[in-house]
C-alpha cells in the first residue's frame, strides 16, 4: 500500500487512512448541511421547538410546525441524501465502464432518457409515483441500450459514446419540449420545475421508493465491486485475469442505470452531480481504483449543499436544486476540459 507523505518524512498517512479521514470530513459537512436544512426555512420555527419535534417532544409546537419539520423538511433532507448518493455511485460506475472521466450518465444521456420516460408517463397516464418510477427506469434502460447500440462499432470507444449520447439527448430534449408545450400552464410549470430537478414537495412516499431502490441496489453494487475494480485496470488485463468483460459491462450498465432511475424519480434529472462526485472523491482520497462508496457520499454532499443554496438564494422563492447544479456543474465541466486538454487531470 502506497503512503502519502506530508511535511517531508515526519507525517505519513497510508492512503486507506486518508480515505477514512476524508469520509469523516464529508460526514461532518453532511451534518452541517442537514442542520441548516432542518432548522431554517420559509416558516421560521424556533430551534428549541424543532429539536423537540425531532426527538419526539411535541410540547409547545403547533401542528403546522410539526408538519413542517416532520413531513416537509425531513423527507426533503432524506431525499437529497439518497438521490445524491445514487448519482455519485452511478457516476463512478459509468466512468469505470467508459474508462473516461467524462463518461457520467448525465453527459452520456441516460439521465435525459430516464427524465423523458418519466415525463411521458406523467403526461399520458397521470402522475402516479409508481408509474413515474417505472417510466424513469424503462426510459433510462431503453436510452442506454439505444446509445450503446448506436455507439458500438467493433468495440466501444468512450468518446464516440459521449458524442452519440449528445445526439440522442438532443432528440429526447425535443420530445420533452413537445410534451411540455402541449400541457396547460400549471402542468407545464410543474413539469419545468420537475425537469430542472427539484426536491420541493418531496414526501415520505418518495422516501419509500428511494428506500426500496437502496435495498435492492446496494447489495447488487457490492456484488459488482470486484469486477468494477478489476475493470479499472483496463479491459485487456481484466480479461486475462478471468473476468467475463462483456457480461460485467452489461451488469454495470444495468445497475448504474437503475441508480440513475432512483435519483430521477426522487429528485428529477439533476445534472453534473454524477460527473463531479467521483472526481472529488478520487482527488481528495487519492485512492486508486473505483471509489464507489466515497463517490456516493460526495454525491450526497454536493446535492445537499446545492439544495441548501437553492432554498436560500432567492428566498422566499425556491429554485429547483438542478438549476444550481447545472450552473455550478457546467462551469466545473468547462474548467475540467481545460485541465484535461493540458493533460494535468
Amino acid at each position, binding site marked *: 500500500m502506497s503512503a502519502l507523505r506530508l511535511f517531508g518524512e515526519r507525517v505519513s498517512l497510508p492512503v486507506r487512512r486518508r480515505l477514512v479521514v476524508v469520509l469523516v470530513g464529508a460526514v461532518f459537512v453532511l451534518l452541517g448541511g442537514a442542520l441548516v436544512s432542518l432548522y431554517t426555512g420559509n416558516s421560521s420555527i424556533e430551534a428549541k421547538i424543532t429539536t423537540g419535534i425531532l426527538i419526539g417532544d411535541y410540547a409547545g409546537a403547533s401542528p403546522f410546525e410539526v408538519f413542517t419539520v416532520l413531513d416537509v423538511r425531513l423527507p426533503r433532507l432524506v431525499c437529497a441524501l439518497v438521490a445524491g448518493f445514487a448519482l455519485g455511485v452511478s457516476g463512478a460506475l459509468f466512468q469505470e465502464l467508459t474508462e473516461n472521466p467524462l463518461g457520467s450518465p448525465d453527459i452520456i444521456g441516460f439521465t435525459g432518457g430516464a427524465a423523458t420516460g418519466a415525463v411521458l408517463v406523467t403526461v399520458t397516464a397521470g402522475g402516479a409515483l409508481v408509474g413515474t418510477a417505472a417510466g424513469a427506469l424503462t426510459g433510462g434502460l431503453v436510452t442506454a441500450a439505444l446509445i450503446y447500440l448506436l455507439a458500438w462499432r467493433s468495440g466501444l470507444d468512450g468518446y464516440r459514446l459521449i458524442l452519440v449520447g449528445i445526439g440522442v439527448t438532443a432528440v429526447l430534449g*425535443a420530445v420533452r419540449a*413537445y410534451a411540455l408545450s402541449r400541457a396547460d400552464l400549471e402542468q407545464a410549470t410543474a413539469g419545468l420545475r420537475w425537469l430542472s430537478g427539484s426536491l420541493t414537495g418531496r414526501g415520505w412516499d418518495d422516501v419509500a421508493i428511494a428506500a426500496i431502490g437502496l435495498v435492492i441496489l446496494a447489495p447488487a453494487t457490492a456484488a459488482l465491486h470486484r469486477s468494477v475494480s478489476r475493470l479499472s485496470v483496463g479491459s485487456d488485463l481484466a480479461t486475462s485475469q478471468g473476468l467475463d468483460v462483456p457480461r460485467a459491462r452489461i451488469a454495470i450498465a444495468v445497475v448504474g442505470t437503475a441508480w440513475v432511475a432512483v435519483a430521477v424519480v426522487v429528485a428529477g434529472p439533476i445534472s453534473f452531480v454524477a460527473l463531479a462526485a467521483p472526481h472529488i472523491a478520487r482527488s481528495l482520497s487519492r485512492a486508486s481504483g473505483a471509489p464507489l462508496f466515497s463517490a456516493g457520499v460526495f454525491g450526497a454532499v454536493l446535492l445537499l449543499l446545492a439544495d441548501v443554496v437553492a432554498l436560500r438564494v432567492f428566498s422566499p422563492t425556491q429554485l429547483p436544486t438542478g*438549476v444550481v447544479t447545472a*450552473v455550478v456543474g457546467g462551469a466545473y465541466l*468547462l474548467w475540467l*476540459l481545460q485541465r484535461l486538454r493540458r493533460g494535468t487531470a
Partner: protein
Amino acid sequence: MPIGSRRPRIRRRVFAGAIVALVVLALMSVMVGPRPISLESALAILSEGVAGSSGAAGRVDGVVLWSLRVPRTALAVVVGAALGMAGALIQAVTRNPLADPGIIGVNAGASLFVVLAVSVFGWSGVLATAGAGMLGALLALLAIVVLSARGRMSPLVLVLAGTALAATVGGVTSAVLIVDSDAFDQVRFWTVGSLAGRDPDLVWPALGLVALAALAATAIAVRVNTLALGEDMARSLGTSVVRTRTIAVITVAVLCGTATAAAGPIAFVGLTVPFAARAVAGTDTRWILTLSIVFGALLMLAADVVGRAIAGTGELEAGIVVAFVGAPLFIWMARRRSVEHL
C-alpha cells in the same frame, strides 16, 4: 471525391434543383394547414391578391393565405437561410464539422438574453428581442472562441465545452423562468423552436438583418477560405486572421440572434446544412455559403410543412422535426472515425 472539373457543373445543377424544390415547397407551405387551400385557388390569390378569390370561402382563403401562410413561409425561409449560413461560417472559423449554433451553446446564450429582455425589462418588440438575442449569441460565441483559441481544440472538446456552456446558461434561463411565471407563459412556446403564431411584422426586420449578414459573409468568404488552410498559411497569403475571425463571429451572432428571436432556439440546421453543402461544393467557401443558404431555407421550410402535414389539426413544431432529422446525422457523423481528426 469527384474530379475538380466536374464539380462546377454538379454545383450549378444542385443549386438549380434546390431553388426549384424551394419554390415547390413554398407553394405547399401556403396550401397545407388546418384549412387546406387548393392549388388553383392559392395560385389565383397569389397572382391577383385577395381579389383573385371568389365567394365567401375564397375570401377566407385569401385572408388566411396573406395574413398567416405567406408571412410564415417567408419567415421559415429567412430563419433557415440564417441558420444554414451561420453553421457554415462557424464551422469554417472553428474548423470543426460538428460545430452547430445549437450544440455549442450559442442558441442558449441568445435564449437567455431574450428571456431576460422579456422578464426583466418587459420588452416584447421584435427589434428589442432580436437585439437581445444577438447580444446573447455574441457573448456565447466569444466564450467559445476564447476557449478554442488557446491551441487547437478537437471537435469533441469543443462540443463538450459547448454542452457545458449551454447547461450553465440554460440553468440560469430556467431559474429566471421559474421565478417569473408570466415570462414563462410568454416564452414556453417559443423555446420549442416553432414558426407557428409568429408576428407577421417579424418578417421584414429579420429579412433585412439576414441580408446584411449575408453581404458581410460574402465579403469575407474568400478570406475564410484561406483561414481554413491554417492560420500561418492564411497570414502568409495576406489575410488578417483576427479581422476575418471578428467579422465572422459578429456575422454569426447577428444570424443566430435574429433566427433565435424569430423562431426560438433551433438546433441542428447549422449542423446538417453545411454538411450537405460541403458534400456538393467541396472546399470552396463561397459555394458552401451559397448552398447553405438555399439548403437551410429548404430544410426549415420542409420541417415546417411536414410538422403541419403529419399532425392533423394541431402541428409538430419545426424545431422538433429538425431535431429528428439532424440528430441522426450528428450521430452518424460521430460514428465515423475521421471526425476526431478533421
